[in-house]
């Protein structure tokens, strides 16, 4: 068992009164200094997971281990982790400096030292000039920064962020994503962020934990998650993915060949990928990895265009094959020569060099 994980969840389950399962046997290793996101739809257990780490929820079964020490039964105030709450949870009866200094004052840090650290933390989040402001005078984005400073100043082993950006408008959110990433790498601190926004998770995380129904579906880097989703759920949750039922028709060196209806698909096989002829699999392929050709070719399948949606750089076509399978195809706009129209028959093929993935149920 490797001892290097900073925080380890071992078979953590959480059942709420009334039989609701919040977490179902979750195993998770969080490494030193990484930015980890817990991603999933609402009710998937990501927030419960975070609350177990913070100590607000006690696991029904399983262990929480921080740097080799079992902290499962430690209360929140005894844990060296801090949380940025979704609603920021700033104390309304204190000013900015008192809010940020709250944790330090409880640790009996000398007043002068407190003052210095509070000022430094506020400088770090760009609010050095708001040190005497009342919480009510701050904008949403500023409150968010105070909440960050208040948690960071305690120098937690892990900073937990519960949907920290969900209350901000789109522009500010994008900016704060970069700010969070900058803070995390300059502090070298471990961040664990809960989010339901896949774009947010993909853009700032080192690793993403995709959760569904209290279980972990996949843990991977953003690129790996996008390129090689492991399950149907992950494929459907991250970006857009065509999910096609396909039959294994043979192996060609490192390539596995599949046929979905009339559409031939191929993917480079993992060393241990075993398949037998005729076996059915769910194959996931991104819309940009499908090509709509005007003419039929050796490896094409006909499909009828049902709709064309403008997507900026690409046009997204929704089409259906003769077998009734629905396809989503992204075609670069300049390549749309001749232009297709709704109702046209196009000949779909896998983009040369593009891969697709086998998805577990």
């Amino acid at each position, binding site marked *: 068992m490797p001892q290097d994980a900073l925080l380890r969840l071992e078979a953590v389950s959480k059942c709420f009164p009334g039989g609701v399962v919040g977490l179902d046997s979750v195993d998770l290793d969080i490494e030193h200094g990484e930015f980890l996101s817990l991603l999933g739809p609402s009710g998937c257990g990501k927030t419960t997971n975070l609350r177990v780490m*913070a*100590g*607000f929820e006690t696991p029904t079964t399983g262990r929480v281990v921080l740097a080799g020490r079992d902290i499962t039964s430690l*209360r*929140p*105030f005894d844990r060296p*982790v*801090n*949380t940025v*709450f*979704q*609603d920021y*949870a*700033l*104390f*309304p*009866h204190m000013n900015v400096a008192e809010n940020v200094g*709250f*944790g330090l004052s*409880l*640790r009996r840090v000398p007043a002068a030292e407190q003052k210095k650290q509070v000022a430094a933390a506020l400088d770090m989040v760009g609010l050095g000039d708001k040190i005497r402001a*009342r*919480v*009510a005078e701050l904008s949403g984005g500023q409150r968010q920064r105070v909440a960050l400073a*208040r*948690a960071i100043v*305690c120098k937690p082993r892990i900073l937990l962020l519960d949907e920290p950006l969900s209350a901000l408008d789109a522009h500010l959110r994008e900016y704060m994503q970069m700010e969070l990433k900058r803070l995390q790498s300059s502090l070298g601190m471990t961040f664990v962020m809960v989010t339901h926004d896949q774009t947010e998770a993909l853009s700032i995380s080192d690793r993403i934990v995709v959760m569904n129904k209290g279980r972990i579906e996949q843990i991977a880097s953003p690129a790996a998650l996008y390129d090689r989703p492991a399950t149907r759920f992950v494929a459907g949750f991250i970006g857009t993915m065509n999910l096609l039922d396909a039959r294994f028709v043979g192996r060609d060196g490192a390539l596995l060949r599949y046929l979905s209806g009339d559409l031939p698909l191929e993917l480079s096989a993992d060393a241990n990928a075993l398949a037998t002829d005729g076996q059915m699999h769910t194959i996931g392929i991104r819309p940009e990895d499908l090509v709509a050709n005007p003419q039929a070719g050796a490896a094409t399948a006909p499909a009828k265009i049902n709709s064309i949606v403008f997507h900026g750089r690409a046009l997204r076509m929704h089409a259906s094959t003769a077998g009734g399978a629905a396809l989503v195809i992204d075609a670069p706009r300049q390549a749309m020569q001749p232009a297709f129209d709704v109702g046209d028959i196009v000949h779909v093929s896998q983009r040369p060099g593009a891969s697709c993935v086998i998805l577990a149920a």
Partner: protein
Amino acid sequence: MMAPGTAITFLLILFSLALVVFLAFRVNDGSLLGAGFTLGNFSNVIFDPLNWSVMLRSLAIAGCVTAATVITAFPVAYFLAFHAGRRRGLILFLVTLPFWTSYLLRVFAWKIVLAYNGVLNSALVGSGLLSEPTLAFLNTPTAVVVTLAHAYAPFAILPIYVALDTIPRSLIEAAADLGARPWTTFRRVILPNAMPGVMAAALVVFVPTVGDYVTPALVGGPSSTMIGSMIQAQFGKANDWPFGAALSAAVMLVILTVVLIVRTTDARFGSRA
């Protein structure tokens, strides 16, 4: 839309208030509104030391009642807000249940409890703690405080409960998260945020208690005569309405002063955003 509210405010509140102030400056000649103008009523109020001692006693008793009510109401409100769970509705209902009976009836109930041969004495004698019943319960200022504190308990419980209940739970979690143990969280986060409710409760209890005259008359005995009894006497037996009006106006001024002092202190605690 403003008209009914304005009319009610003027007719029922400001007009009657103005009438009291007007009356306070009139000479008592036995007629309804008096005759001529004078400052004599107010000089009587100020220069009779009896008024001062009764006024101070009223303030002291009302202060005790307020302290007793708020201190006993806080745990009830705290339990309601944080631990009552599904029984919250039932407990809130039980808290307001005494209002289903008349105020007078509740005062008499306390008379039965505190009397010489009442419930409390019987219990104490029966259990051997006292050899014979004592007169120390009824007809004392303590009896007034107990009775009023009981009568005003719901008025204190409700505002404190609302203040506690509207404290976002994330504030309490944030305090724990930053390292505060439960008592520290209570002292530094819950209590300051509940202060507006506590102050509201204190005012709601204090203001009507200062002028109460029924309870002291029934359970207080001669040593707990309050300013309300004196005012009532002027409008009743003594039949000196202008002097009664001057006393009333003086009491209003005193209460106003107390309220203003409390509000300034409250502002220093800071209110919720």
